């Protein structure tokens, strides 16, 4: 604060605002204004052709009675349940693996990270080949006497396949977050536990995991939000099908808005998704805060 000691030489009252002006303009045009429109639309009817018409709570009444919203909610929940262990637990083991002091370990980190930086569209094409009816995965299943499965055309397998793609694509990111956490675990604690006769599993549970608590808070939130907003993977792999088995809230919003041009209703569903995401993030914040005390 420019307190009693007065302003720094060369700074005026308007200096910070001049610096922030472009940022504030972009914020207003690309975030604040759209956010206001989103809320306004949720209480309106709008099909792009006719003018916006205020419709009160109609969209929300419709939403509560829309079976596809419930299907999407159920799918998003299933998505989270399958996605969490794959992104919160498995990458911890990956991180422990690439935390070893071995030659060329950096190369392995890089390979595990590769899917993170490539586009969803491109990796989805690759996955179509891998999970093809005559692809590598079905060949492996065949060795065990199972399959073949049409992963993306089967009502029961499509959603797990999409989840697996998202988890595979994001695993490297979660791994690096854990790696940063692991590297700040005090090594003397691990050594002390070793001297006390703790085996590797006990050390993991009683030393490593507790000291990674802040990291878990991050991965848990990230994982839930990623799962809730899953859209691109659904769009490029299954388009919500077969029979709505991969219909997520994100995809439903998109298809209502840009296939049916039912913008008002789509915005209402968007508001629902938004609320869920904020509740999830807030819940996580609360839980992790309390543990820290």
């Amino acid at each position, binding site marked *: 604060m*420019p307190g009693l000691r007065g302003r720094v030489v060369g700074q005026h009252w308007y200096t910070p*605002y001049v610096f922030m002006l472009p940022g504030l303009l972009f914020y207003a045009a690309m975030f604040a204004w759209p956010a206001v429109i*989103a809320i306004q639309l949720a209480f309106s009817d709008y099909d792009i052709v006719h003018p916006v018409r205020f419709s009160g709570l109609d969209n929300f009444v419709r939403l509560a009675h829309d079976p596809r919203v419930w299907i999407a909610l159920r799918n998003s929940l299933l998505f989270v349940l399958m996605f969490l262990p794959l992104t919160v637990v498995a990458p911890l*083991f990956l991180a422990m693996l690439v935390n070893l002091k071995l030659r060329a370990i950096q190369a392995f980190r890089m390979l595990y990270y590769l899917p993170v930086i490539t586009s969803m569209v491109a990796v989805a*094409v690759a996955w179509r080949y891998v999970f093809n009816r005559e692809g590598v995965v079905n060949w492996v299943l065949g060795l065990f006497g199972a399959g073949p499965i049409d992963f993306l055309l089967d009502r029961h397998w499509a959603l797990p396949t999409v989840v697996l793609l998202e988890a595979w694509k994001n695993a*490297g990111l979660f791994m690096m977050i854990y790696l940063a956490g692991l590297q700040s675990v005090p090594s003397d604690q691990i050594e002390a536990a070793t001297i006390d006769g703790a085996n590797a599993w006990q050390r993991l549970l009683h030393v490593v995991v507790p000291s990674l608590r802040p990291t878990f808070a991050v991965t848990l939130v990230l994982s839930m939000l990623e799962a809730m907003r899953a859209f691109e993977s659904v769009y490029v792999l299954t388009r919500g099908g077969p029979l709505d088995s991969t219909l997520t809230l994100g995809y439903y919003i998109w298809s209502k808005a840009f296939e049916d041009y039912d913008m008002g209703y789509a915005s209402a569903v968007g508001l629902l998704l938004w609320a869920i995401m904020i509740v999830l993030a807030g819940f996580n914040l609360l839980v992790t805060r309390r543990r820290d005390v």
Partner: protein
Amino acid sequence: MARRLYRRTPRISARRVGLYVLLIVVAALFIGPFLILLSAATKPASQDVFGFPPDLIPRPPVLEWFREAWTTIPYARFLVNSVLYVGITVPVYLVVSALTAYPLARIAFRGRGVFFMLFLSIMFLPGELMLIPRFLVMSELGLTDTFAAVILPAILSSLGIFLLRQAFSQIPDEIVEAARVDGANEFAIFWRICVPIVAPTLAVLAILGFVSVWNSFIWPLVVLTSQSKFPIALGIAYLSGVSGTDVRGLAAGTVISLVPVILVFLLLQKRILNSMGGAVKG
């Protein structure tokens, strides 16, 4: 597995070999799909793409599918577009983020915390939820189906402002004071002294920006209608929708789209990997 990871034994080579085998098996899971893609892209028409057991080595490897992908769709156009999107978005993104973050870190003014929270709130307005209202904003501004419409929403990110603010606030006061005594104005201090010091952070943001613009898909899909403005990711989706595209041709087109990102990644891997964990943790 955990037992292996934590015991620090002096070199038992069998254990070491076991760990490398494990590392390689896991690596195969992560890069296998890319290799299968490459295999499909280079197989001659006479060799099946699928089948049991998998026959992944092309006999002989051919390049005709790359040519096919290149000519089936205006591939060069899409690549040029993506280069333009990256080339315009990333510098503007860096300048706007730096300008915005600077006073939040180095100028004392009333409401600084509020402005910082305002910019962090971007985190809670994810792109997926902004599709509809932003589309309407773009129609209002008469910008649908333009390059500008693709670029504008990508100029501000909470991560950029967050990281740059952190970097700016770590600059020692003495350096800045010395310049101030010499009569430098605030902008000169920002541009000539502080920006060069935070160059490593800017580099990280440039890489992240490049990757996210190159891969961006949903927003261009919504806001663009003319094929001539498609970025590469949209081009691949378009190619996979073109009827009669051979699976090999689609694979080849996809491989081309991956090359720039993978090249940048290989060149700058240390910086990318180190930034990631740190960025999220910070």
